[in-house]
């Protein structure tokens, strides 16, 4: 039988309907579609896809199980190396990782690995009721700072080995970026909560409302009897553009906008946390966070949403699927444009005019691509005299984040790089004995899966360190 050159499409909500609700966009494969897609895997000898995965999931192994209709077996293969399969199947940029390496992809579209991972994880989660067996305690205590993807992964791996693990979370809900950043329509919060509950079943103690660097310091954790500490505190601080007008009302960092909507649930009908809804919205940036913010704005009732990005479609760093979904939903891509000023209302005759200080527009300049820069991407250069004004009521800045300095400033001897990222060796060890780190706190804003990979590496190193003690 000839191989289908294209990936089987994943059913999804109609774009015109989903643009006005927060339900999940993609609906997932049916059994029939999963089986059909699994047959596209050549089970090639080289298995390049495994190397493309930051946590080295045995991809041909789990797909073979799907072919045999052993879906639970397939899940178990993934679970050997991945802690959050239902999350990764949804948010990994497969097209630059496993699927980019797929042998089938040389000639045709690669195997829909992410879609298959999602299918078996959802099936497992829907069917499995039994709680995991708590491993026997090995008597060692480890503290994890932050309950995002790296922290949860590190906690899970150590708990399975019998460590007494406590996770300290600064916010009131565990999950880190998975709950405050990624919206419900892309990653339902019930999935995150299930993963967190799974860790609790393994014996992991999760302490919310504790800010390491404020409520407790890393040194105090050691005094409390923790023998190793993993810092997975994320890249907390939002970057702004440093252009005039960024303090007008209606200018949000993507962090603030998404946190208000996701964590604080402004997206629900009766929220207690306000957010500006409706009107015209411009989102600055081209990553996943920008796509999330733009699509959230649309769902909150914006009449028109722009993505303003200084490079072209080709350089957009967001997952391909998110860009496709955003286009289908009617997000207006203003590519090769760069904001130079945010404009606000100012009534010179009435300083008490309630409209004063609110955003009225975004002044942009057109860009063209020049020579490649340090990142290898062609550098955007402004086209002189091409300024124009986008008429908008809100602007969301999604141009990246920097590591939070709270831990650095309260932990003596913890080395950080020029950008504030914690310096680690290949085992995730920092400049302080017993202190490990990973995820965005080390790299600056990156992906969920790379943070998970870092959590795994550190968990293995912590195990080795404490076993030898």
């Amino acid at each position, binding site marked *: 039988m000839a191989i289908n050159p294209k990936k089987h499409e994943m059913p999804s909500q109609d774009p015109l309907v989903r643009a006005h609700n927060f339900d999940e966009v993609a609906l997932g494969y049916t059994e029939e579609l999963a089986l059909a897609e699994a047959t596209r895997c050549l089970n090639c000898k080289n298995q390049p896809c495994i190397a493309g995965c930051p946590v080295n999931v045995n991809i041909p192994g789990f797909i073979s199980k799907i072919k045999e209709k052993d879906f639970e077996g397939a899940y178990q293969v993934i679970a050997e190396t991945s802690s959050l399969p239902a999350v990764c199947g949804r948010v990994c940029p497969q097209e630059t990782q496993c699927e980019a390496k797929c042998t089938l992809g040389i000639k045709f579209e690669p195997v829909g690995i992410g879609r298959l991972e999602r299918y078996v994880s959802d099936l497992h989660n829907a069917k499995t009721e039994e709680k995991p067996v708590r491993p026997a305690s090995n008597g060692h205590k480890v503290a994890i700072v932050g309950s995002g993807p790296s922290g949860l992964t590190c906690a899970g791996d150590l708990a399975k080995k019998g460590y007494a693990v406590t996770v300290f979370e*600064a916010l009131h809900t565990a999950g880190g970026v998975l709950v405050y950043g990624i919206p419900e329509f892309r990653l339902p919060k019930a999935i995150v909560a299930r993963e967190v509950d799974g860790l609790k079943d393994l014996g992991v103690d999760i302490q*919310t409302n504790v800010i390491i660097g404020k*409520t407790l310091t890393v040194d105090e954790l050691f005094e409390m009897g923790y023998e190793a500490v993993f810092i997975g505190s994320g890249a907390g*601080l*939002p970057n702004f553009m440093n252009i005039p007008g960024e303090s007008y009302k209606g200018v949000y*960092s993507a962090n*603030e906008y998404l*946190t208000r909507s996701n964590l604080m649930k402004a997206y629900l009908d009766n929220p207690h946390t306000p957010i*500006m809804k409706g009107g015209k919205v411009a989102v600055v940036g081209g990553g996943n966070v920008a796509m999330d913010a733009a699509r959230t704005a649309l769902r909150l009732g914006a009449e028109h949403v722009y993505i303003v990005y200084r490079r072209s479609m080709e350089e957009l760093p967001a997952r391909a699927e998110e860009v496709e979904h955003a286009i289908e939903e009617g997000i207006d891509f203003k590519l090769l444009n760069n904001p130079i000023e945010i404009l606000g209302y100012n009534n010179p005759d009435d300083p008490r005019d309630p409209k004063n*200080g609110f955003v009225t527009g975004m002044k942009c300049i057109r860009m063209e691509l020049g020579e490649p820069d340090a990142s290898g991407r062609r550098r955007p250069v402004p086209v002189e005299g091409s300024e124009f004004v986008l008429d908008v009521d809100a602007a969301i800045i999604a141009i990246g984040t920097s590591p939070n300095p709270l831990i650095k400033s309260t932990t003596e001897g913890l080395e950080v790089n020029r950008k504030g990222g914690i310096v680690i060796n290949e085992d995730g060890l920092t400049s302080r004995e017993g202190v490990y780190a990973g995820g965005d706190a080390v790299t600056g804003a990156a992906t969920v899966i790379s943070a998970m990979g870092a959590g795994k590496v550190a968990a293995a190193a912590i195990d080795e360190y404490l076993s030898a003690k």
Partner: protein
Amino acid sequence: MYKIIHKKVLRPTVTQLEIEAPLVARKAKPGQFIILRVDADGERIPLTIAGTNQEEGTVKIIFQIVGATTEALNHKEEGDYLQDFVGPLGRPTETEGIKKVCIVGGGVGCAIAWPVAQEFHRLGADVTSIIGFRNKDLLILEDEFRECSDKLIVMTDDGSYARQGNVTVPLKEMLAAGETFDMIITIGPLIMMKFVTLTAKEFNAPITVSMSPIMVDGTGMCGGCRLTLNKPEGKVMKFACVDGPDFNGYEVDFDEAISRSRIYFDYERKAHEETCNLFKQAENA
């Protein structure tokens, strides 16, 4: 969950709570704040720490009922629990090298100014306190301030108690008479802090202001609390939650801060009315 150990109604619209939060109590220093949520799905609101009790492991907060969340908070009684309580946040007030200080508090801001005055008093500094209120009904902490101040001046806007006028009047008199301070520290409504700063500026007197902008997480993540400082090298953006809440008054762009503080003004007024109606319905039922 965080238990309310003591509740004291200071004034019809001003309440003091002591919350069981031993980790926060152990670390809290004057000038720092906490963030709380009253109920699940509630709003996160920042409130400055008004004191701690190390033996009981409690943190004292004093708040004025201004919106839906403070209204709900005021309906909690001793023995009830708050959903979330996290801190201490922000940097403590700088006390080093300050031997003579003038604390200028306005309204419920006096609750924040009080532990700062106490701290300077404890450190042996000469403390002058000026506390101002709209009227007699809103007056709080007069005796408490008297205990930790070498000199106390009470003002009311309408003259219904003590001296009539706003807090800048006695400050200006003192500075004009040649009085000097190592630092003036002002805590209160933005508009008051703006004018206290302008008064200090006339006499080249150093001044610290305590900012309390709208914020979500309080750890530097949302950037909602950003404000602009006019530094010699140009405009600089700072986050009040991690870089503050105290700033050099000369540098703060008050007009921008005042504008930003009113982003959700209409929304908050409506939410407060709705909450009041809910409580009224519950009481009438």
